């Protein structure tokens, strides 16, 4: 298993970190719905970022905790962002060699 984050995993994190029950299919169908609309506040997203950083053993891009929608967040975490800055390529390169264990 790689450290690519899926919507299912994001939904599980929203549950464990912020107590929110969100259907991953809904996030897939409505990619522009914001975290705020799902009830996730900035501390909740920060908790998810922290959990993923511990899981992956590497920092996420600095913009991850400011992502407005699940799609933006997944793009950043999975390194698909069109607007990758200088630091981001490094993070992506590093991520290619990291696999999660037991997750």
């Amino acid at each position, binding site marked *: 298993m790689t450290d690519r984050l899926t919507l299912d995993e994001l939904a599980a994190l929203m549950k464990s970190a912020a107590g929110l029950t969100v259907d991953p299919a809904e996030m897939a169908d409505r990619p522009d719905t914001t975290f705020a609309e799902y009830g996730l506040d900035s*501390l909740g997203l920060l908790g998810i970022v922290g959990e993923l950083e511990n899981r992956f053993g590497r920092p996420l891009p600095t913009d991850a905790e400011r992502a407005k929608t699940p799609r933006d967040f997944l793009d950043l975490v999975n390194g698909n962002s069109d607007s990758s800055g200088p630091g981001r390529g490094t993070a992506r390169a590093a991520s290619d060699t990291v696999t999660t264990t037991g997750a």
Partner: protein
Amino acid sequence: MNSPHEHRHSVVTGIGVIAPNGANTEAFWKATKEGISVLDAVTREGCGDLPLKVAGEVRDFDPGELIEERFLVQTDRFTHFAMAAANLALDDALLGRADYNRSPFAVGVVTAAGSGGGEFGQRELQRLWGQGSRYVGPYQSIAWFYAASTGQISIRGGFKGPCGVVASDEAGGLDALAHAARTIRRGTDAVVVGAAEAPLAPYSVVCQLGYEDLSRCADPARAYRPFTDAACGFVPAEGGAMLVVEERSAAEERGARPRAVLAGHAATFTGAALWEESRQGLAHAIEGALADAGCAPEEIDVVFADALGVAAADRAEALALTDALGGRAGRIPVTAPKTGIGRAYCGAPVLDIAAAVLAMESSVVPPTPNVIDVSVDLDVVTGRSRAAELRTALVLSRGLMGSNAAMVLRRCDKSPS
């Protein structure tokens, strides 16, 4: 000069209780009236080996039944209690979103807290020192803060009026009610106000072990017996109460039932553990509350005592009542229902306010469980409840750090409607 706000009176329209003897107001009042003691051995995880043996635990409480999970994960047990009690109070007052949706700024929130979120804080500190700072959850930044309950109740209910938190020792429970009354005098229609505490987690209990006045007695029937020669300190408790307090005419306009008027309050400070000095402080607070209420000493029908359970403090309280109320003090029924549930710090005086309102409505003075052979010159109601016509109640509270407060409550006359 006449202020436009001069005649805005604060009335209690809703009561919500989460207490060791009942996780709703009805259960609390039934057990209180019957004088049932629920003091028992401490069973909370991690507390077993600590020298505190007896406490008032809230055992019959499932926060998940009452509070959405997203609020639960980001808050401590003390806020769970406060949010649940606020729910009950709002339901009791029949104050729903439809009542304030168009004017959310007309409803405020005030709580008092003594210690904040000890259990949540301990868990996160254990992660900090056990796993490292990257494992501390971000909600730590708000959950253990003593202001958390005010904020979460405001957010959850959509109350956008004046909000506040009183940090003033145990007596802060009464000061919070006084603050709510001031808020209402200044133009707010309703305030959700009260206090709840959760001091029964290992870290929080260890913090309390420094209090000389904490009872170490292991026998629940003997651990907390104020006003007797056997007094050996106080037993701590968790839980508390939230009230809906409204401006009287606004309450009546929406068809709510005014139940008691927050008629007067005063607070003083006489220093930590200086119980002899608290006599003067408490007497001064009682006199101030009476003056604020425009109430004569002989109008007081019942006293809900602070009842610390420390000989010097109990004696000071009895003398303060005589100082402020005169010779009649010895003939007024005095009760301390908290001897059956323990002292929930800031929650304790708010539970007493709830009990006082219910006592006036039921024309009955609840007893003081576990207290027999009273050794002070007060008419302490022991054993069974006592029937009495109660129009005016005096509620007293002192904190371990030296705050003293008194509040006068008047029963609302039965509405003609």
